[in-house]
């Protein structure tokens, strides 16, 4: 062994490294090759060069993209992006490592996927699947909702927690489905169909998942799912990825939510504020009714007052007063009249007394009556000789016979 070692040629590290380098350089496959992979460990050095790793499920390759090459990049590379990089695989002698020297890089699939997305969008739009007027409205107070998503993802957690916070007494049905991968679109579509058959009383269905790359969200851009959403009788809410992610599902769905938790915020009412609103309305209703009752009571009292004032009793009282008044005046007047007449009477009495024949008799006059009829004799012709006469004087009567008569002119 030892003599063998002595005879064998010994190479320096540089010799071997250069040999390896030549092997690499001699292989045309490693010239101008395009590699598809996920960006990882991306570093944008202050020198302007980019250092990163491209990887797939099993392997990775170290990469560098020099300043001169990366100035023309049409996107900002970041970890997790799928890219299509073109360059040479060569050996970096100093470290004894092979590296991928990238001189061109594009977001992988972006172009093709984006084109497919746009094409499907145009097609479905032309068919009328996105029309606003066919969109179903959601009930304000949902009682039973279903969520088709991964049962283990962040999306379902967000949806359930936001929903129960806003409206605690609600029935949520979780429908497990893959949300990425080749089976995802058809699984979600089948579940929509199944729910329409098995649970037609659902208020609506949320389909969705958390954020991810365009590939990860791709299920929601597939035609099979779009058509199933369109034909669902139960309203569909699409809640895919982040605010900025738009999918075909979003366009077909009856409601597009920016995120899964946003879907719950938009569709589930806040019970607390509804209760407050209701309480206020009820209070107002009671206050208004009391107010109206008070008003009507006042009106009633006013009318009763008015009625009392208009009552015939009042009139009667008034008339009675008038009557009293008149009676008083009548009495007063009567007394006055009587008084006046009494005075007059006294006066007349006096007068009568002075005019009485008896008073005349006292002054020496007498009255002669022709008997037996006692007719006052005023003229001589009333009597004849021997007629019986009576002569009344002041203190009595003298009976006499006419002995003669003589008239004087």
């Amino acid at each position: 062994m030892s003599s063998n070692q002595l005879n064998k040629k010994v190479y320096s590290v540089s010799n071997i490294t250069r040999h390896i380098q030549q092997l690499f350089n001699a292989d045309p496959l490693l010239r101008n090759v395009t590699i598809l992979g996920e960006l990882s460990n991306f570093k944008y050095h202050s020198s302007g060069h980019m250092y990163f790793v491209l990887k797939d499920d099993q392997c990775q390759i170290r990469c560098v993209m020099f300043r001169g090459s990366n100035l023309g990049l049409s996107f900002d590379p970041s970890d997790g992006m799928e890219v299509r990089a073109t360059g040479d695989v060569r050996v970096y002698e100093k470290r004894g490592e092979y590296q991928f020297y990238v001189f061109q890089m594009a977001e992988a699939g972006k172009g093709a996927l984006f084109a497919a997305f746009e094409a499907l969008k145009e097609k479905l739009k032309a068919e009328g699947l996105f029309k606003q007027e066919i969109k179903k409205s959601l009930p304000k107070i949902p009682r039973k909702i279903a969520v088709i998503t991964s049962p283990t993802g962040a999306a379902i957690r967000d949806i359930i927690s936001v929903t129960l916070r806003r409206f605690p007494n609600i029935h949520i049905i979780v429908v497990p489905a893959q949300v990425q991968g080749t089976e995802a679109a058809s699984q979600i579509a089948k579940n929509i169909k199944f729910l329409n058959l098995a649970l037609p009383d659902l208020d609506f269905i949320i389909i969705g998942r958390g954020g991810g790359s365009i590939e990860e969200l791709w299920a929601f851009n597939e035609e099979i799912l779009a058509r199933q959403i369109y034909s669902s009788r139960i309203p569909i809410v699409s809640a895919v990825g982040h605010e900025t992610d738009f999918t075909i599902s979003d366009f077909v769905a009856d409601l597009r939510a920016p995120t899964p938790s946003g879907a719950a915020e938009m569709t589930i009412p806040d019970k607390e504020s509804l209760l407050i609103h209701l309480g206020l309305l009820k209070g107002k209703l009671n206050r208004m009714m009391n107010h109206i009752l008070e008003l009507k009571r006042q009106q009633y009292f006013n009318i009763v007052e008015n009625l009392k004032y208009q009552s015939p009793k009042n009139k009667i009282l008034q008339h009675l007063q008038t009557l009293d008044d008149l009676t008083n005046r009548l009495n007063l007047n009567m007394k006055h009249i009587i008084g006046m007449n009494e005075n007059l009477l006294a006066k007349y009495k006096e007068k009568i007394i002075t005019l009485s024949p008896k008073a005349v008799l006292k002054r020496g006059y007498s009255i002669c009556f022709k008997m037996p009829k006692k007719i006052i004799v005023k003229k001589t012709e009333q009597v004849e000789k021997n007629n019986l006469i009576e002569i009344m004087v002041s203190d009595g009567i003298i009976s006499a016979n006419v002995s003669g008569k003589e008239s004087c002119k």
Partner: protein
Amino acid sequence: MNDKKKKVKEISFEDSLKKLEEIVEELEKGELSLDEALKLYEEGMEFSDKCMEKLNESKQKVEKITKEGNNKYHTEPFSVQNNEEDEKE
């Protein structure tokens, strides 16, 4: 069942709330006879009760559904806490 009865009484929360709001507004105008006001008040209270009923109608339930054929399925309680460590979809 009492399906028919349910249908007659079936008025949505939104409609009930709207009716209640309209009634309050009508009472506020104060141009009503006592009979009309009392009738509206009664209706308002009914709509208010109806709203409360709607808000408390359903019960909290979180379930996971498993399909077992075309129309068949079974459900089991679903709890999010159990899945917390599993972030990836």
